[in-house]
């Protein structure tokens, strides 16, 4: 599995698990489905532990959907990889 595919799988699985919205679609905004901002920040903390990546909360909150977060973390992973090379 590629890095990006692994990130997508992790983000999707944890979002569905932690936000408690079983039928959340990839392009649906968390807040449009009643997510509490503190729950979303908790989700970020858990995800970043798992992915070993860090991005600013305000960047994530500008794209608060599974699809949006996959994009943000994939980009962060690319940048981390480039910086390490």
């Amino acid at each position, binding site marked *: 599995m590629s890095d990006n595919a692994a990130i997508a799988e992790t983000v999707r699985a944890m979002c569905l698990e932690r936000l408690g919205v079983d039928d959340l679609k990839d392009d649906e905004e968390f807040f449009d489905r009643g997510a509490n*901002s503190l729950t979303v920040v908790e989700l970020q903390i858990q995800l970043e532990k798992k992915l070993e990546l860090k991005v600013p909360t*305000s960047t994530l909150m500008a794209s608060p959907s599974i699809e949006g977060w996959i994009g943000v973390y994939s980009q962060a992973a690319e940048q981390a990889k480039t910086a390490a090379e």
Partner: protein
Amino acid sequence: MTDFTLSDAEIAKFREQGFIGPFKLYEPEEAKERYKQIRAQLFDRTHAVYDLDPASAIANYDRHLDIDLLSEHVMRSEIVDRLKPALGPDIVCWRSEMFPKYPGDEGTDWHQADTFAHASGEPQIVWPGGSDFGGAVTAWTALTDATEENGCLRFIPGTQEEMFYDEMKGMKYSTENVNTKEKDGIKRGFFGYDYRSLQKDPNWRPDESQAVSITMKAGEFVIFWSTLMHSSLPNITKDKTRLGFTSRYVPASVQVYPNTDTITEYGSTISLDRYGVVLVSGEDRFGHNRMVDQNARGFRFAA
């Protein structure tokens, strides 16, 4: 420039019932776009004037002092012009707050605020000596739709001139009070306090049969005296958050946070080092309060 001053009939209605509106401020599409941008920017505390944990109940006090969209909002002539019949020509914005109500959240207790000492124990606004007036005028803007299902405001019209609560009586804060109490059949509380403990007469009950629901579309606002008996319903939806933004206004002659450098309420303490009132109309001929002419990011407040 359009003048949004209230008509004589609206002024009479405001005086009689203690509130007026809702009025449209933003078209639905603009409201949605602003809501998204504001929501994201609330998480960026790099310029917030209070050093608080984001989980604090008062983390979003006075974000008009660091978020440009909110700085601009509190100055909007659609709001400010409508305050003038009640507050006169010289007006300051002294406080703003976010009021999210998430699915499953309790309603808000019936309450009235005159000096806003109810939580901190110290008067936060003091009108000029000998004045019979008190309170502030609040503009409550719906950033999402506000319905009876997701927790819209409730008012009891005409109650703004008699305080049924003694704000100096003292309330006890406990997170155990949140989302746990039913009062007269409705799950409600006051952000960790029980507002009933401030009642002058412990046996008194607000006459809820006279209450009206203020349902609003995203982008609308209502203005009301803080001394008006008001509350909100619980959010009984599964996935519809209600978010309201309040901006609170008083005449420039009112002293804000007199003789204090810090505020302790809702389980947090804040320092007022970077706080200032914002002149939204007229001039300040009193010099009672520290005034800020720009927000923490340099956005200029131009009345």
